């Protein structure tokens, strides 16, 4: 586990978001991904490395080529990142509701 890099850091970069969008529709090799950017190939490789490290991308060996594809589980984690915040408020409000119902019944 690399604590230095989390998924939110990974998606903070526009190039990395563009890479995720690219491979969302189909698995692609590093070369095919790099062909979509003006950026130097090593830079794209670095982005791929970061995305792989934080498990947003998964590698798959096919013959001599390595294909990159999305890790749906991790993507869902991003989609759900607001959930703990929502849950925190939901719990608070549930407590409020429970407590106030007692005031109601004692009236």
């Amino acid at each position, binding site marked *: 586990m690399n604590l230095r890099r989390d998924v939110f850091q990974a998606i903070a970069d526009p190039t990395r978001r563009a890479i995720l969008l690219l491979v969302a529709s189909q698995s692609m090799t590093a070369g095919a991904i790099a062909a979509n950017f003006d950026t130097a190939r090593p830079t794209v490789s670095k982005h791929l490395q970061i995305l792989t490290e934080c498990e947003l991308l998964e590698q798959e060996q096919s013959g001599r080529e390595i294909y990159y594809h999305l890790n749906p589980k991790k993507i869902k984690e991003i989609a759900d990142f607001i959930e*703990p*915040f929502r849950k925190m408020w939901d*719990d608070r409000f549930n*407590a409020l509701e429970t407590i106030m119902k007692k005031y*109601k019944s004692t009236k």
Partner: protein
Amino acid sequence: MAQKTTIHAEDGKQELMVTREFDLPLELLFRAYVEPDIVEQWMGTKVLKLDNKNHGSYHFETTDPMGNKHGFHGTIHEFLPNRKITRTFEMENTPFDVQLEFLEFEKLTDDTSKLNMHIVYRSVKLRDQMLQLPFAQGINMAHNRLQEICKKISPLK
């Protein structure tokens, strides 16, 4: 099951909206924000000061399981009973800047009500940090304390 509490946070905006419908008459919902001993129960916090009026203020303090005290406070800008509270919120001894909160209370039926909490942050970055805070902490301390308090509450006060 439909979620009772919803969060609306648009990308790239420095604000968010927390909306909740309650199985409570409007007056009871509002009371939960006004009476210090009730606030203490559901917020899981100690109320050091709660001066609910225009130009009023509040000061709360929570103690985490380690015994550390965390204070938070704000100014109550506008106070309209059963309708609206406009206030600031600031956590003490943190790098987070103050936030502005608009709480609007609405009657739905005689037994149900709704709260809209519109929070405005200093920057998009700060809003996103605050949104991620509970996520980052994994288990939120306030949340834990809240659960403890809920368990402690006896059936009747």
